[in-house]
């Protein structure tokens, strides 16, 4: 990740292979209350993120922001890995949990058998 602070704004060039788009969006969502955040495509493999304080005159501790951003990106990537890897088992878990809620569908028409077997007699 290339980071540069210029004119009171932080620019980060992010490799999509390292931090995929969902990770970036989930992470930067938490910066949008204090900062103007912009994400643009540089190439098929890179995105550019720009972070600038909402109040242009505000003094920003960019060392802190950079440190927080690096840590948050790692955290959100870890969360994404767990989410991706456990997606199937999570779906299975929820399906099993609520399967009991399914109503047993009774056949709408009478049950018959062409060979003359009467299922009702069982």
């Amino acid at each position, binding site marked *: 990740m290339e980071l540069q602070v210029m004119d009171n704004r932080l620019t980060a060039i992010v490799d999509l292979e390292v931090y995929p788009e969902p990770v970036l969006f989930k992470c930067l969502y938490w910066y949008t209350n204090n900062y103007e955040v912009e994400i643009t495509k540089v190439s098929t493999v890179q995105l550019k993120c720009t972070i600038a304080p909402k109040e242009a005159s505000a003094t920003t501790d960019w060392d802190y922001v950079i440190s927080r951003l690096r840590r948050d990106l790692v955290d959100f990537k870890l969360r994404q890995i767990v989410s991706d890897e456990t997606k199937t*088992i999570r779906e299975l878990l929820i399906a099993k949990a609520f399967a009991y809620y399914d109503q047993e569908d009774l056949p709408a028409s009478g049950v018959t058998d062409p060979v003359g077997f009467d299922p009702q007699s069982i």
Partner: protein
Amino acid sequence: METVFLQERQTRKFKDSHHYTADTGYTLLPFRFHRLPDEREILVNEIGDYMVLPAGTCARIIERRIDSTQPEDKVLYEDLVAGFFITEQPVPDLLEVIATRYRTKKSFLDHFTSLHIFVISLRCEHTCHYCQVSRVTSDRNKYDMSRAHIDAGIDMMMQSPGRNLTMEFQGGEALLAFDNIVYAVEKAKLAAVKHGKQLTYVICTNLAPLTDEMLAYCKENSILISTSLDGPAFIHDKNRHKPNASSYQLAVDGIRRCREVLGEDNVSALTTNTRRSLDYPVEIVDEYVALGFRNIFLRPISPYGFATMSANRNRYETGRFLEFYKTALDKIIEHNLNGYFIREDYAAIILKKLLTPFPVGYVDLQSPAGLINSVIVFNYDGAIYASDESRMLAEMKDFTFRLGILGETSYREVFYGEKTQALTDVMVNESLPGCSACAFQGYCGADPVFNYATQGDMYGYRPDNSFCQRNMQIIEHLITLMEQDKRIEKVFRSWITGKS
């Protein structure tokens, strides 16, 4: 000449079992994590079990660096397996158990709407500056619920699939329309027998108009009393102004009389904490202890109705409320450690979610949200609202959460209609931005009405959402307290078990 490549002949012989086993050691199960300020992290699994671990452990787990053969990792590895954070099989043997736990956590949905609030009258003799609704002292016909609307409300309540239902009378001041309460209780009693329902009745009142006859009727019908007590007289009387009288004295006298007639467990009190209250956390707690209460509910003021109009007095930062809450909680814990059992209800709700597999039927901390699913409100004018807060918004002429009119709108139209269906998009925190990855998701809830009232958007914007900030900090604080001091954990456990 073509070159012929001879391939090794494939056979159907089974390969050694190692061929089929992935070499990752373990498989992840769904969990989320949150960093604590003290360089530790909390891991929470899909069914609400949590572990507090040193920073970096989460990354080690995900990168498969927990080695069960190493002595330093052995216990952690076993805890992670036992706690359903990882599994040694691709599909865990105990998947059914986890699914049952998940289902149990969401089992509050089985009961569907159990709480039915009847705003029996809008009339009130108090002039509280923060009142979230409205108050009118005259025009009984206009501001009391009509008998026709009461009948229709009971009809709708009886259609609830739940067997155990609560009928709660609110105001204004509910006791000013006590004849309507009696009418409603008598009608509901007959209907409950017919429909096989078990009813609990609650009257929310400031206790000022309470008479001996009213108390006798409450006793006869096992009606619970819920009142308001904001703290000592110098806070309560300022918060809850009653012309030419002390609201505090009336409330305290009323609590004493209710206890004598109905029994101690059948009267409860709630605090509403205004900006003024925030300076007196210890005094408020001590007042509850002095009056012999065994529980206290430290609620922040709701951002609705008149409460939003008195901006200077009532709008305070979440940070100030949290400071107040933590100080008050410390005092409550101190009382418990000194041998006096008193529970903080908001903490107890979260602790039950943290420490037990069971759900909590508290409307504000549910996902799917409690509005409509757990509570429905019938306003004095017959309008049906999704929650108590929804009707408070309506008093501000915002009818976004009005679902119909008693006697005109059918049960199906209210509970399964277009408006309700549209609301379901914003009622599940598992899919809300900011909440979906949050470690505390299972302990928290979705509150579209709060989001709408404070941020103009039912989805809410988490980075500066006070519901999110408040709950995140309270949950984190409760976990930290338990981790720091096992005596506090014991106190907290006593709050959810009732045993000290």
